[in-house]
């Protein structure tokens, strides 16, 4: 097999083809650059989502990265009121539900710190309203008064933990996986 050296005319033709192609793309972009702005925004947000998903535990289903139906998205959080050696697991405060939902989907240090601080500043009580022999640990709302059904909880700090779950198809087990925890002194 022999290789024929391309002639000057052939190279010139190829050069023209590339030039024409380049020119066409330039023309197309000049005409449609406005229409491509939403697409560029989509790419910027999706890349940000992928980075945060891989580096900072952002939920794959959220954040505009089109990761819905790509991984198990179940998450949950625990709020622990800590004393020296023990802890009390508390209910979700009504007023912080939305903030905690956001933290669950994206447990960034900043968000967790802000929520943990609010939790530590709250008034926590044992609530005997539902059952007399056992009480749930709840945070009183801003305008909610202390009543005879309440007893103050003593604690030193609040710990917020965010978990995801891992499913193993071989053993059919579902195990919790701690993503991040953060404690805040009272």
């Amino acid at each position, binding site marked *: 097999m022999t290789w024929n050296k391309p002639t000057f005319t052939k190279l010139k033709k190829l050069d023209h083809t590339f030039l024409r192609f380049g020119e066409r793309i330039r023309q197309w972009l000049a005409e449609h650059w406005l229409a491509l702005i939403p697409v560029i925004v989509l790419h910027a947000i999706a890349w940000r989502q992928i980075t945060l998903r891989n580096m900072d535990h952002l939920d794959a289903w*959220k954040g505009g990265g089109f990761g819905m139906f790509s991984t198990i998205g179940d998450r*949950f959080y625990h709020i622990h009121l800590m004393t020296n050696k023990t802890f009390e697991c508390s209910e979700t405060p009504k007023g912080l539900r939305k903030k905690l939902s956001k933290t669950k989907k994206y447990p960034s240090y900043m968000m967790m710190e802000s929520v943990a601080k609010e939790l530590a500043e709250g008034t926590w009580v044992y609530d005997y309203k539902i059952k007399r022999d056992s009480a749930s640990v709840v945070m009183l709302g801003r305008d909610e008064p202390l009543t005879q059904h309440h007893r103050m909880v003593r604690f030193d700090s609040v710990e917020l933990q965010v978990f995801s779950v891992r499913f193993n198809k071989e053993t059919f087990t579902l195990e919790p996986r701690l993503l991040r925890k953060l404690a805040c002194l009272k």
Partner: protein
Amino acid sequence: MIPKIRHKLLILEPTKFTPLLAIFFMITHFKDFMNHPAIPALVALIAAIGLLFENARGFARYWAVLTSLYAAWVVLNWQLIDNHMYLWGYWLLAITLSHFSKNKAKALVVSAQYLIASCMVYAIIQKMNPTFLSGDFFYFQLLTDSRFTFIGKLIQFNMVDLIVENKLLIQEVMTNAKTVRLNPGPHMLHIISQCLTWYVIAIEAALALVFLLPRRVAYAWQHWLMLLFLSTYFILPIKGFAFALLSLSFTLIKPTDAGLKLLYLCFMLYIFSFSVMVVNVFF
């Protein structure tokens, strides 16, 4: 009657009809207040103005206000909202920017095509993880997601009880943060989860590819693959994402293609009015 409908469909300009669809979607779907009631209320009000007055829809400023309010809502709730709400935001931005283009219709077509392609490209990139590729994701969904109960009818198995039992076990994991063993159900679910995994990868990759190709080359493929992809929503009603994709694809229909327009409109009608009812009755 039929020639009349055909005539109506023929004169229906997809790029002119699509802003109306956008407004319809804003009114019917955008009702989640999420602690910022002022923004959705304003969005609904502005959308209603657009629905009532055709002239309003022709103003760039009208769309700019609607898009800005929507963007503000997205920024405030970005960790919680679903992906189709983002896609919808890009679409509103595309409609706004089209008013500043020389060729408005062409601008909408370009935006719609590349938004769909990009959306599918990222959907595929995100699925390239061990949990999805091993089939674990769909197996878990089949065991725990009540939207998949219709599979019980196909394999003659009581999926409702299985899902309820597994949901209780998940609750146990969440309450006590301890490992549990889920009820694995019949072996058939393994096979179904594998089929679903590879079907989803194949169809999304194909969609990404055909929507990256020029419209004149892959026109038929783009629409038939999209309709095949959306057929999943016949039995898995996820209104928001389905309607967003339908609206974007509708923009890409050629004005002379009356049949395809009818098909898309019927699909939209089904998704909005009958999908939940059909799933409840038959499954």
